[in-house]
């Protein structure tokens, strides 16, 4: 095979007149695609407390405890059996453990876990990484 010295010289010279390939983050906002997997949000009104997300999570990052405040049971209608109140659930999400696979959101039968595109989640105080959604 024929050897050609300084094969890259012309390429290097043309790069003198090109814009940098890197972006100016954090001064310039970073773009993510529509399918990017970010932080998981929680909608307490939809959650039925089935714990499917807790069981499926590969990094044990979710807990679904009962809320401290519960709704009172609806008043008993005459001639009808008493209806129990709908239970309220909280969500404790450990962002430090989460691997952002979105398996919980896909498993949730009521779509109570909401997917977002948030990715700027770094914290100096580790306790702030545990989010308590009510």
């Amino acid at each position, binding site marked *: 095979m024929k*050897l050609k010295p300084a094969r*890259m010289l012309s*390429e290097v010279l043309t790069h003198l007149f090109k814009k940098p390939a890197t972006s100016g983050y954090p001064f310039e906002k970073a773009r993510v695609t529509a399918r990017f997997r970010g932080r998981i949000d929680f909608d307490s009104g939809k959650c039925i407390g089935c714990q499917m997300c807790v069981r*499926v999570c590969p990094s044990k990052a979710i807990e679904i405890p009962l809320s401290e405040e519960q709704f009172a049971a609806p008043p008993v209608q005459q001639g009808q059996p008493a209806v129990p109140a709908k239970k309220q659930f909280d969500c404790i999400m450990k962002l430090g453990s989460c691997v952002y696979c979105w398996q919980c959101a896909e498993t949730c039968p009521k779509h109570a876990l909401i997917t977002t595109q948030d990715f700027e989640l770094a914290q100096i105080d580790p306790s702030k990484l545990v989010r308590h959604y009510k």
Partner: protein
Amino acid sequence: MSKITIPLGPQHPALKEPENFMLVLEGEQIENATINLGYNHRGMEKAAEERTFIQNMYLLERVCGICSHSHTTCYVTNVEEAAKAEVPERALAIRVLVGELERVHSHLLWLGVAAYEIGFETLFMYTWRDREQVLDCLELLSGNRVHYSINTIGGVRRDITPEQKNEVLKRINFLEERTKYYIKVATEEPTVRARAANVGKLPYEVALERGAVGPTARASGVKRDVRKDAPYLLYDKLDFNLITHDSCDVFGRVVVRALELMESYKLIKQVLNYLPEGPLTVKVPPRIAPAEVVNLYEAPRGEDIHYLKTNGTDKPERLKVRAPTLANLQSVTYMLEGGWLADVPLVIAAIDPCMSCTDRAMVYDRKTDKTQVYDWEDLRRLGIEAYKRKGVDFSKF
């Protein structure tokens, strides 16, 4: 001249991952090389036994950052085979597509690493800049640059829309042009040739004898590629060439990987134009009847083997991973022996090592001549005790 033994690693500027090579030197020449594994053992196989099949998907994705799709595809094929599930063809096509994009990203990364070890930093910067294009493709399709998580048991999680197809094709065409240029640079530039030719020689017979896999074997003229030998997914329907080179040195490994990039572009275009209509997943029950399965996968570094034993529960009884680097490490000692000390980083980098994927440990008691297997709780307890002796207390966590 007196012989001197020097350790290379586990912490060494030339190695990106912790691994130890004991080199016996006579002057500048290496007389003998031994590899010591086990500095980065993570106990993943044991951890997999404690998790359900779906949780293991995300654990095994983290065996290796660069071949994350290879490991999950191999594992998920095992699970589907054990559960006797028929995966839809569209899902298989998407798996091939992501697998080939992953190969492109891995080979471009390696080309940069090799250029860096050669001392050709311009080529390193250019290949890594262009690699962003393929990483963007992967983020566009799967939602993440590295851990794609596109596989699920019974199919794939994300579909491909026509807009995405056009976007991927646009980027692949750009990369194809760039790769043609890099092939010219790698083969015609005298600096690359002077540094890489006749370094780390691995003759055909030795490559066969030591069981080299992937591009390392193909650069020694061994026609070995799982995609051709035992086609999985859709590879038997696709048209591509098996690239070999007979120079048996680091230069051959550069050429094989660069030419394989062109084959991967060809495969990506074929799959994007093929994409059969149909569902993305089939339902697989969470509990899987007792079965034993083995599957092979051609990862960017070579043949990846997964073994799975199920026992009727929702967790595997045994999972075994044989990463390609473990097979290639046998050849590294041969390549190093007789070579020069200055060539060591280049020769090690030439097999595209992924030490963390490879690391494994077994407990062998020399006094009683017994091997012992620890379970998850034992390993955790031993770990906490070992750190306590060093003055760190993890028992509270």
